[in-house]
C-alpha cells in the first residue's frame, strides 16, 4: 500500500489514562510488559506497506522520539520511507486549542508535500490488528468519500465511553454519529480510523478550522455526513480502546489469556517495538508464578498470579503480586503483598508491606516512587 500517507493522530480529551499519562503522552504508555501503545498503530501501518507515517504527539514528545527513533524497527526504509514526528510548533495559548486540527494546520506543509493520493488515519489508543489494505480495498469498492473503520461491540456500557457510535443505513453509509454515553450494550463504535483522499482530508482540516477553533477531525467528519458519502468498514477481531485507566487495566488483564492474546498476536503480523537487550527472565527455586505474562529480564523469587510484569521487574522472596500490572524496572520488595495495583516504571515497593486495591479501586504507584 504505497499510495497512502499514514497519520497517527493525537490522543484527545476522550482518551486519558490517569496517572500514567502525567509522565508521558499516550503513544508511549507501556502496554503488556514490553510494548508501548504506539507500537500497535505504527506496526499496523508499516505491516500494511505504508512507507511514510506522520505521528502527531500532543506534548512531552521526548519519550516518543526516543522510542521510535528513525522507525527502523518498524521496517521503515530510511531512504525511501519516512517516519515524521510532529507536534505543535507554535505555542498554544490554551489547552482547549491543542487538538488535532491545530496540529494538522501547523504542519500542513508536510501533509501537502507528501506524494500520496490517500491518507490512512488511526489513533494510538486503539489496540488491534488491522490490515489497512483490506480497508482500502473496501474503500475503493464502495466508492466512498471517507471510510470509517468501526467495530460492533456488546459492552458499550463499560468500554469505548466517549467514543462516537455509528448509525449505518443498509448500504453501510453512516447516517449518524453519537457519543457513547454508556447507556446501551450493543453499539457500532468508531475506531477513529479513516481512509480518504488526501485532498479531501486537507479540505476538511481547513474547513474545520474555519468552522470553529475548537473543532476536531471527528467533529468535521460528523458535520459532513450528508454532504459526503461516508461509509463504515466493519473491523472484526480484537480491539481494546485504552481511553481510561480501567480500560487500560482490563486490556492488560484480558490479554494474559492465551485465547484473547491469539486474537491480537499473529506471527505473520508482528508488532514491533524498541528492543531493550534484556536477558531472559530468571525464576529462582522459590518462584511461584501462574497465569501471568512476564517480559524479559525479570528476576522472580516470589509469588505472581494473574499479573503482567514488564521488563526487568524484580519480585523478592515472600512477595505476592496478584492482579497487578508492574511496569518495567519496578522492584517488589520482600514480603510485600500487592493486589489490583498498577506500579509505574522504576517504582520501588520497599517499606510498605501491603497495597491492596480492588477491581473497582485500583492503586496506582507513581513512576520512580519509593514506597
Amino acid at each position, binding site marked *: 500500500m504505497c499510495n497512502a500517507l499514514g497519520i497517527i493522530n493525537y490522543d484527545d480529551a476522550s482518551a486519558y489514562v490517569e496517572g500514567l499519562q502525567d509522565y508521558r503522552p499516550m503513544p508511549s504508555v507501556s502496554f503488556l510488559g514490553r510494548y508501548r501503545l504506539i507500537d500497535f498503530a505504527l506496526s499496523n501501518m508499516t505491516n500494511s506497506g505504508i512507507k511514510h507515517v506522520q505521528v502527531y504527539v500532543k506534548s512531552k514528545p521526548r519519550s516518543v522520539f526516543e522510542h521510535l527513533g528513525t522507525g527502523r524497527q518498524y521496517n521503515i526504509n530510511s531512504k525511501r520511507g519516512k517516519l515524521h514526528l510532529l507536534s505543535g510548533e507554535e505555542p498554544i495559548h490554551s489547552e482547549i486549542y491543542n487538538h488535532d486540527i491545530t496540529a494538522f494546520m501547523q504542519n500542513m506543509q508536510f501533509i501537502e508535500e507528501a506524494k500520496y493520493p490517500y491518507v490512512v488515519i488511526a489513533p494510538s489508543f486503539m489496540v488491534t490488528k488491522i490490515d489497512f489494505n483490506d480497508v482500502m480495498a473496501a474503500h475503493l469498492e464502495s466508492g466512498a468519500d471517507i471510510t470509517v473503520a468501526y467495530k460492533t461491540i456488546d459492552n458499550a456500557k463499560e468500554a469505548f465511553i466517549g467514543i462516537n457510535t455509528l448509525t449505518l443505513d443498509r448500504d453501510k453509509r453512516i447516517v449518524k454519529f453519537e457519543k457513547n454515553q454508556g447507556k446501551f450494550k450493543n453499539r457500532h463504535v468508531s475506531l477513529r480510523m479513516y481512509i480518504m483522499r488526501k485532498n479531501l482530508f486537507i479540505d476538511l482540516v481547513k474547513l474545520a478550522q474555519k468552522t470553529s477553533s475548537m473543532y476536531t477531525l471527528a467533529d468535521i467528519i460528523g458535520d459532513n455526513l450528508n454532504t459526503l458519502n461516508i461509509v463504515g468498514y466493519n473491523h472484526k477481531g480484537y480491539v481494546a480502546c485504552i481511553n481510561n485507566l480501567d480500560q487500560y487495566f482490563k486490556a492488560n488483564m484480558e490479554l494474559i489469556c492465551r485465547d484473547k492474546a491469539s486474537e491480537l498476536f499473529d506471527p505473520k503480523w508482528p508488532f514491533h517495538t524498541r528492543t531493550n*537487550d534484556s536477558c531472559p*527472565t530468571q525464576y529462582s527455586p522459590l518462584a511461584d508464578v501462574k497465569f501471568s505474562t512476564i517480559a524479559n529480564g525479570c528476576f522472580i523469587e516470589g509469588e505472581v498470579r494473574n499479573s503482567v510484569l514488564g521488563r526487568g521487574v524484580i519480585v523478592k522472596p515472600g512477595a505476592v503480586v496478584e492482579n497487578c500490572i508492574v511496569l518495567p524496572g519496578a522492584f517488589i520488595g520482600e514480603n510485600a503483598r500487592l493486589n489490583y495495583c498498577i506500579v509505574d516504571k522504576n517504582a520501588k515497593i520497599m517499606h510498605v508491606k501491603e497495597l491492596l486495591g480492588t477491581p473497582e479501586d485500583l492503586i496506582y504507584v507513581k513512576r520512580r516512587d519509593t514506597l
Partner: protein
Amino acid sequence: MRQHSMVAMILAGGRGSRLLELTNKVAKPAVYFGGKYRIIDFPLSNCANSNINIVGVLTQYESVLLNSYVTQDQRWGLDAKDSGIFVLPPREKSEGFGLYRGTADAITQNIDFLDQYDPEYVLILSGDHIYKMDYDKMLSDHKKNNADITIAVLEVPMKEASRFGIMNADETGRIVEFEEKPKQPKSNLASMGVYIFNWKLLRKMLNDDVKAEKSSHDFGKDIIPGALNAGKRLFTHRFKGYWKDVGTIDSLWEANMDLIYRGSELDLSDTSWKIYTEDITLPSQYIGRNATVKNAYINQGCIVDGHVENSVLFTSCVVEEGAKVIDSVLMPGAIVRKGAVVRRVIVADDVEIKENAKVGKPGDGEIELIHRNVHA
C-alpha cells in the same frame, strides 16, 4: 581518525564437529547459547562495549546463516557511519583461490582489508568463546607495557593446564616461554586465544609466515613462538571471570546451566555490559494456570503450562500442561507436548517431543542431543 586505532578480527571459520548435529548447517559461532543468544554475540558485544568500531569476521564453513546474522550490525550498535561488521570469507584473487590454511593465514589473506583502516593495533579473537571482557583495558595494558603483542590469559586449575597453551611469564607479566599443551606445565596461565598485536609488526610477521614453507600458518603454533624467538615484547593480560569454550554437547549444556543461578559469574542481567543479539518480535512469555517454574531461565515468546525445573528455555518454546522439563536446554521453537518428560538433554531448535514421549534420563551420564522429533 582515532576511531579505528584498534580493529578486531574474529576467527569464526571453525566447524565445531563435536557439537554434532547442531553444526550440520551452521558454523559453531552461530550455535545458540543462553536462552536467546548465539555464541558469537559474546565477542561481538565485547567489541561494541569496548569501543571497537570495525570488526572483521573470518568465516569459511557453512557461513550463510553466520554471515547474514553478523551483517546486521545494528544489533551490536555497530551501524554508525564509520563502524561496521564485515564478513571475510576466502575469495578468488588474480593469483587464484585459496581456503584459509590456518588462523594466521586467514588474517594474511585479509591484509588488504586491514590496510583500508590502517589501524595501530589489531585484536585477534575467537568466535567460539563465552565471556565478557573489556578489550579496551587490555589495550591500556598493552600500551603501558610498550608491548609488541599482548595475550589474554586466565588461571586454570594446575591439573587441567596441560590441555591449554600455557604462558610462562616473569613478574612484570612479560612472557618468557610459551608451551602448547605441556605435559609438565610450569604455570597455570592459559592463553584465551585473545591477542593484541601492533599492526605493523603483525603485518610483517604474516608476510614472512606466508612464505615459510614449514609453517602451519597458525597463531599458537607459528606466529607467537616466532615472535618470542625473535625477542619481541610479549606480555600477558590477566583475565578474571567466566570464560568457556563450549566445544562439546556436555560443555554447551553445562554453560547453559551456569546461567540459572543468579550470582553466576556470567551475569547477563548486568546492564553495564549488555550482550546484544537478534531483536525478536514476539510477545512476552506466558506462564499458565497449571505451570510450575522453578530455577529456570526462560526467554520471550515461550508458553509454559507444565513443569519446568533447572532448565533453560530459548525463544518460543512450548511446554504443555502435564509436561515435565528437568535439567534440560530447549533451543528456539522446541515443543514438549502433554505428558512428555524431558530430562538432562539438549533439545535442538524446532524439535518436537510428542505427547507422553520420554527423552533423557536422570543421573550424571552424558548429555543427549535430541535433534529429531520424538514420539511416545
